[in-house]
């Protein structure tokens, strides 16, 4: 050992002794205290840099994982939509069945399988037809007795339902007011409904419910058509017109019930 080695070793041994004796402790503590803020900053920078680096490294894996997760989400979304649709169908059917069972109507449940493609023709296609006992003129309801249309024509296995908001639809109806005003509910170009032939002197309140009158052979009384949203009164006319807001949106329907026979009442 030549050069400064003996001196360095001597210094080293002296420092070890001083450390053991606790003499160096104050100096060591000061050094640590002074360095501490700098170290915190350096450590923070190191951690951030490391995290960024790890993020970059994981980018490839993340992209792959992201694709897999996207596929999973897509699959689950599809399943979810199917399940929601099924649940919605079940709920709608349950509601319809409850109503129809309570009222004693004979009915045929059906799924909507399409819409008539012709323009300005508000008609849906259902998956039940003449073989199931469906015939023209039968009322089609959803939920707790909300009428949405009548059977326009029935093939063996499918039927077309003319929606009540179609301009060709005419339903004998009654307004739930003091006079139980009679009238006819007519479709308004697929957009809304209006009730015509309400006697001029009858009271028509906004929000009043309009139901079927039962005057038609196949349509029982009491099926809900809509509620009054606006009233049009012309002083020179014998009748007044009530504009109705339907209770259901046709676009959201999936299952319907066709009332095939009125109850004995």
């Amino acid at each position, binding site marked *: 050992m030549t050069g400064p080695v003996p001196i360095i070793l001597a210094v080293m041994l002296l420092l070890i002794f001083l450390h053991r004796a606790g003499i160096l402790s104050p100096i060591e503590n000061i050094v640590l205290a002074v360095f501490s803020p700098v170290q915190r900053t350096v450590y923070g920078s*190191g951690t951030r840099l*490391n995290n960024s680096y790890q993020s970059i490294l994981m980018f490839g894996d993340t992209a792959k994982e992201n694709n897999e997760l996207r596929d999973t989400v897509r699959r689950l979304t599809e399943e979810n939509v199917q399940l929601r649709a099924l649940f919605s169908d079940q709920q709608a059917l349950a509601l319809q069945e409850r109503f129809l069972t309570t009222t004693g109507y004979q009915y045929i449940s059906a799924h909507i399988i399409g819409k008539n493609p012709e323009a300005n023709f508000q008609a849906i296609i259902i998956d039940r037809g003449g073989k199931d006992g469906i015939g023209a003129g039968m009322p089609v309801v959803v939920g707790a007795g909300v009428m949405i249309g009548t059977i326009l024509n029935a093939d063996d296995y499918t039927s077309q339902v003319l929606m009540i908001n179609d301009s060709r639809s005419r339903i004998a109806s009654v307004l739930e007011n003091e006079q139980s005003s009679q009238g006819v509910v007519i479709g308004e170009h697929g957009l809304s409904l209006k009730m015509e032939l309400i006697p001029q002197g009858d009271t028509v309140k906004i929000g009043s419910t309009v139901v079927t009158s039962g005057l038609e052979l196949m349509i029982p009384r009491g099926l809900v058509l809509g509620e009054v949203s606006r009233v049009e009164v012309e002083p020179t006319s014998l009748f007044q017109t009530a504009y109705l807001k339907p209770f259901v949106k046709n676009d959201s329907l999936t299952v319907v019930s066709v009332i095939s026979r009125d109850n004995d009442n």
Partner: protein
Amino acid sequence: MIIRIFSNAVLILLIVLVQVSFLSTWPQPISNINLLLAAIIFVAVIINYEQGLWWALSGGLLFELYSELPYGTVALSLIATSIITNLLFTNFFTNRSYYALALLGYGATICYTIFTFGVRVLLVVLGQSTTVMLSNFSLMSFFIWQPMLTVAMVIAIFFAYSRSTSGLKHLVFNPEDHYEIRRRH
């Protein structure tokens, strides 16, 4: 002279800070890089052996503050590593090529690892510590990653030093001691 001592002290301080607070935050094997050892090897081999010894002492003592080993272990290991490196450098790797520098770096790291690990084993044998102290032993880390990365660091420091401004060199080292520069001129 005083400025040079102060500059050296600041440099050692920075290296220890980077080692303790920056490199330690990275995952293996980056955290295996022993920057202080790489710097000491570089100084001892390339710059000046005596200066390398003082670096080993001062850097080691500073490192002791953050080490779980008994006080003096790191400093003494670094000093011993410097001495062995110098012996190898003057007696065996006399052609002074990059390969020699790399091999010296590898050998020095292994020496340092053996010294520090030897102390751990000794502590366990003497009953001063439990075997937990040996739990981080990894052949891959001790004989592959740490030496390789330290060698890479030595080479990087050498290139950085070669290309750095002469002012900085003068501030920290005595360029007259630099055999490489002497050889070039």
